[in-house]
């Protein structure tokens, strides 16, 4: 049994299509259908592989974004250290407290 959703099959108007051609035409059509199915499967595999490739790039981009944000944060901290050293030192002390609840 196909794992397609039953609702999709019911909704498809071409399910009740007329019978396929007889004889040599039938064989030809079946062969063409099989070839087309194989081609669809091949293309789907290509798409999935492409997805993974793009996923890796997207993941790397997210990682870089995260590093960039931290770098910006670092810059802000450096600026604050110059303009408001007391505030920064207080925050650092709090941070390095490391209390556990």
């Amino acid at each position, binding site marked *: 049994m196909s794992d397609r959703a039953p609702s999709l099959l019911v909704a498809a108007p071409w399910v009740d299509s007329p019978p396929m051609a007889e004889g040599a035409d039938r064989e030809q059509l079946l062969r063409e259908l099989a070839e087309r199915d194989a081609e669809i499967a091949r293309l789907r595999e290509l798409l999935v592989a492409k997805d993974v490739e793009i996923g890796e790039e997207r993941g790397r981009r997210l990682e870089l974004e995260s590093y960039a944000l931290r770098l910006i944060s670092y810059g802000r901290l450096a600026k604050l250290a110059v303009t408001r*050293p007391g505030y920064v030192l207080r925050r650092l*002390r709090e941070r390095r407290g490391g209390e556990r609840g």
Partner: protein
Amino acid sequence: MASVADAPRFSVITPVYDTPADVFWAMVGSILGQSFGDWELCLVDDCSPAPHVAALLDEVEGLDPRIRVSRRPENGGIVAASNDALAMARGEFLALVDHDDELHPDALRLVEAALRAEPEADYAYTDEDKVDRAGHHSGPFFKPDWSPERMRTQMYSCHLSVFRRSLVEEVGGFDPEFEGSQDWDLVLKATERARAVVHVPRVLYHWRMLEGSTAGSDEAAKPWAFEAGTRAVQAHLDRIGMPARVTHDPDDRGVYHLDPVLTEEPLVSIVIPTAGQVREVRYEPVVLVSHCLRSIVESSTYENYELVVVVDTPADPALLEELRQIGGERLRLVEYDKPFSYSDKVNVGAAAARGEHLLLLNDDIEVATPNWIERMVMYSGMEEVGAVGGRLLLQDERLQHVGVRFEGGLPGHPYWGFRGDFRGYANACRIATNCLAVTAACLMTRRELFEQLGGLSEQFPVNYNDVDYCLRLRQAGRRTVYDPDLKMFHFESSSRSSDVEDWEKRLFREMWLRFTDPDPYSNPQLRHELPRPSSKFSWMPRRPRLRRRRPPKGQPA
């Protein structure tokens, strides 16, 4: 032999071998400069061939009465020298310091404070960083609180390690069989018996990067040390009776993997709540639960499991028939006719389950690791472990779940969306570790525990029920484990909205804030599991005096 009253609080034990003079003095100076003075330094020269070492030791011996020196007549390796130093030591606690490393000026004082706060502590460790010969600091390692599972796949506590001396003597000191990883072996042996372990989340140890040292080079520097590490962990697994075999990652230094070697296969009940939804998975519309079941049946190598599928009624008869065809005799269908509540649905499924272990699984999961059930049983079978989860990947193989972390008392997925092979901070994604919670999209727990705790809480019908369950397990003294080698695909949020309601957040924080903030398996210096920018300053003295003092009144600036 001095009396107990005369014994110092800490014995710093340091084997010496061909130490360059500058780093030796830096090490000795860092001990002499400690803000806590009740210590002794036990130096053991392992018959260094370099002629300057003898002169150095002669000089340092007369420097302070707390410095004691012993000279071995022949070279015996680091284990023999460490054991000699151990025999010299009189202190209540032993601090292991290498001959070329440095301690933070407050190291012993802060460790002392932590040990005083936890009188039962038999082992303490601190955060560390690396320092080059010129004194430049880098690579801080901010560690989690005590994580036994992590310790089996990564020697993460490393420096500074402080042991109760009586415990070290009880386990027989350093074992020459594990030369190179003798410290890891000692930590494993000691923590098997320790009453409590303390972590001081401050960078108090500076590990010197020198050519040829483990800190300063790649794995090629000491390959035998990593081999010894494998043997030390295997010996530990055999001692505690964990059915696993350890292997050393060939590509990644410091990463070890555990593979299950089960002697028996208890019945596992895989509970899958479903609404029979359809979704496009890899460009093909599929019924999620059928796809999930098929992947379990076709991929799993574990034999003894049952499938408990909880379906909403009225269920599509064609779907039920399909599930029966896939699941065969393993399948048990449970009908659910109440309004949607994930917690209740899982509890109903668990009530129908017969297995010793419950494996809660979302219907949008696809199995990617054939021995996934074995891996989970390996951990779940341990008495102290409450729940086990794995590494979940999105459809495009990016990270979805590597264990839940908490910030501000609320749970989140660190590294979500990062590429699948992302290592995480200090290899966090690649090593087995403890966390406060794992997602119920793929979670194994013992049925006995599940029943004792009353299953998933119906206070959280949609979100946070899994996290709440794991936290209740922790309250009951059980650990939650993340296994990185258990990979599954999770076609996330295909079944419902991922939005968390405000009332859920409020209620969760009210209930759990004091357990989850701060997250003990993270570190105050980490944010989103990556070092905070301000952590770069963590090596600074405790009270830096950068502020310019104002001149007294009446005086010119």
